[in-house]
């Protein structure tokens, strides 16, 4: 599964994506983000204010409690500034 990073989160991590294979108990987007944060201090620090982020599974914005079942990609999205 791919994890995608954008904007200042991408810059802070110095990469735009990770290829990961989380264990079976990582069931939801929230579980995945927790699991990623445990393995990466920089990510953990960047995600400190977790509530400001949105998440997308396979290019659709979803609530954090969404199950990962079968997902190819999960994106972690800092607050957007379109328009």
């Amino acid at each position, binding site marked *: 599964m791919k994890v995608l990073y954008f904007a200042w989160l*991408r810059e802070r991590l110095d990469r735009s994506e990770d290829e990961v294979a989380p264990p079976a108990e990582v069931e939801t987007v929230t579980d995945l983000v927790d699991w990623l944060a445990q393995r990466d201090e920089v990510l953990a620090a960047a995600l400190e204010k977790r509530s400001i982020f949105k998440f997308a599974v396979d290019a659709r914005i979803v609530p954090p409690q969404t199950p990962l079942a079968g997902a190819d990609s999960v994106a972690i999205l800092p607050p*957007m*500034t*379109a*328009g």
Partner: protein
Amino acid sequence: MSVEVITGSFDPGAAYSEFLAGARGIGAGVVFTGVVRSTHERPITALILECYVELATNEIEAIRRSAVDRFALAEAHIIHRHGRLLPGEPIMQVMTLAEHRGAAFDGAQYLMDYLKTDAPFWKKEETADGSKWVEPVAADAVARLRWEQT
């Protein structure tokens, strides 16, 4: 084509002419164009727009459909650029067409308010002293809320 997520520039007037060409018999057209700002107080050399293109296309199309349904629009079209843009260049444009002006105006404002908070674009301002990500504006979150209360 009702949603365009593009890197090249576009001509706001020409895009509007093309949009209106299909308007025969429809009474009211509204356009909003966002232009790259560079002010005396905060001069910038460029605006970099990062985009998650696939998500942007999906999300803007979802917002567009919701506006069309909610305001009974005859048509709605959104253009949004990403990449490196110069001051004075258009960033994005929404266009709506409806029987009456109220729906056309409301539809365009709704689209803008949702795009501001839900479309995956991130702005970075390039200045003489370096570059900096643009902070989201609290007013944009508030503007969006009004559509949830009505």
